[in-house]
């Protein structure tokens, strides 16, 4: 037995190329169907877990999937906006806690999520460092943002302008980091959280500038009447909100008309949730109310169907591979007849020769199993998040 195993091992080691090809073929044969199934299952679990924890989502009429992916993962195509009046309408029903979301902007590639402090308790997000944002212009960053961008409490992030040519639009705003979140293995790790009003400042709906009553601003004033003061471009505009200038920041117009990407509604209880859904169905409140769990369930149903077709294809490919490997193996036994005859003449029994051939197969299968297990582990560890990010891009 020991001798046959030794010879089997030496044979495989000598024919390295053949062994590597065999190992690769058998490994892929084992790994691909298993990994596909596990990857889809893990991704589905990760997707549904966040959706299960988000009872109701309200947004503008349009793609339900876009709305859910954007509100849950912040990376999907931007859905049509709603006004903050919608959040107010829902709040006024007294049926649910309302959490606004405005996910339109980015800072160094990370999504800026404008929301309220309720969001953190709703998602169970704790601070690793610093404190929650309290003032306009302050931000709390996810663990991955802190790690990948090498920033922390006391540093700052600048919002990305949407387009260089949009002079009336989004200006970069320097945001002070006041807190870093504990890792949560979710999309929250990759986000920059600010108060929803900060996103309106980024959007240009609110701004801060030199006090026009100050003596230093006199040269900038063009005209003055009872209702308004008109200034020229020399008036100093602030692009960072500080304790000194925060009072100079203000919003023009009615904030109830300001935009939101979505509103998370956390019903007080099941009955309140049902009543709230009824209000939307009756058209009492404008907008679209969706159950993220149901929307993602529909998506996953399609994914699972595709997965089954892929696995079927892989199984058929595996069968063809097994047939080819068997053929190669049998041909190889033919070529080794001389070697087997010598071993026989040297005293090897038929059992020894069978063990020798079986050990070669065994080493290949065992090696492939180990490789397939390692690959599957690597895929489960690293690829699920990657796949999720692909699905939500």
């Amino acid at each position, binding site marked *: 037995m020991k001798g046959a195993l030794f010879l089997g091992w030496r044979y495989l080691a000598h024919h390295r190329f053949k062994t590597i090809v065999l190992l690769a073929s058998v490994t892929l044969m084992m790994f691909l169907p298993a990994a596909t199934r596990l990857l889809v299952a893990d991704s589905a679990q990760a997707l549904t877990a966040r959706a299960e924890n988000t009872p109701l989502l309200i947004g503008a009429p349009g793609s339900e999937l876009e709305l859910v992916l954007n509100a849950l993962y912040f990376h999907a195509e931007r859905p049509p906006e709603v006004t903050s009046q919608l959040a107010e309408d829902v709040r006024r029903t007294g049926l649910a806690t309302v959490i606004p979301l405005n996910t339109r902007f980015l800072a160094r590639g990370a999504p800026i999520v404008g929301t309220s402090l309720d969001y953190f308790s709703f998602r169970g997000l704790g601070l690793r460092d610093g404190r929650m944002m309290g003032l306009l212009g302050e931000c709390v960053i996810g663990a991955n943002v802190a790690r990948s961008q090498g920033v922390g409490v006391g540093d700052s992030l600048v919002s990305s302008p949407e387009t260089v040519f949009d002079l009336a639009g989004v200006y970069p705003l320097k945001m002070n980091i006041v807190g870093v979140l504990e890792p949560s293995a979710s999309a929250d790790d990759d986000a920059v959280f600010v108060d929803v009003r900060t996103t309106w400042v980024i959007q240009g709906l609110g701004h801060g500038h030199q006090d026009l009553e100050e003596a230093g601003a006199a040269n900038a004033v063009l005209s003055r009447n009872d209702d308004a003061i008109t200034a020229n471009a020399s008036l100093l505009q602030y692009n960072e909100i500080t304790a000194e200038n925060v009072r100079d920041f203000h919003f023009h117009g009615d904030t109830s008309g300001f935009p939101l990407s979505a509103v998370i509604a956390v019903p007080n209880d099941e009955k309140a949730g049902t009543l709230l859904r009824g209000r939307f169905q009756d058209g009492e409140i404008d907008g679209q109310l969706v159950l993220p769990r149901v929307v993602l369930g529909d998506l996953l149903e399609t994914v699972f169907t595709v997965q089954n077709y892929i696995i079927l294809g892989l199984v058929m490919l595996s069968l063809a591979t097994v047939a080819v490997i068997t053929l190669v193996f049998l041909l190889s036994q033919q070529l080794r007849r001389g070697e087997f005859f*010598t071993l026989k*003449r*040297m*005293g*090897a*029994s038929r059992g*020894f020769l069978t063990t020798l051939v079986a050990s070669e197969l065994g080493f290949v299968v065992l090696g492939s199993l180990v490789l397939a297990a390692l690959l599957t582990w690597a895929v489960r560890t690293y690829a699920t998040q990657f796949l999720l990010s692909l699905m939500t891009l």
Partner: protein
Amino acid sequence: MTDISISGLEFSYPGDHAFAMAVPKLTIPAGECVAIVGPSGSGKTTLLSLVAGTLLPLAGKIQIGEITVSQLGDTARRSFRSREIGQVFQAFELIEYLTVNENVLLGPIIESAVDTQVRERATTLLHSVGLGDKAHTKPANLSHGERQRVAVCRAMLNQPRVLLADEPTGNLDQANKQNVVDLLVTQAREQGSTLLMVTHDQSLLGSFDRVIDFEELTGVTA
């Protein structure tokens, strides 16, 4: 002392009615170096296989020392062969994926009986034939002459009572032929083994104690 004793031996391959071999009587004393000559297809290789116990006779008796090989069961014959018989094959039949040292150790590897003593003997044998520095080389990287010496070392490892060599000089030039025969005879004499070598080459016969003409020995119909 008689080492190999054959009497009333008859053999034919199943289904091959054209070949039949009979050896009425043959005795070879212990330690004798014997060359067997005869035309191709006359059964010289078959005789060596019968002595080695790889083939079984239809009738008759083959005795090596006190053991009647032809009456042993499969397992006992294999065990006897690996203990008492050393074989040098026509094309040396080295295993390409094993090193020189592992090829020499092939018998004990098959028996799962490799120990320090056997390893030391393999090393000593390789050094004695000038291959000490090639112990970890694969056969593909050896010259023809070196391969012969490895085959002889493999055959001599278990200090066999009987050394069987089946035309080991078949494809060699004259100088190498004589080298192989000298090596076999020297090793056999050093170990006290009985050497039985099949050859067609008349020029090598002078190295042997006795030459047996196979046609005279047998009633061959080829």
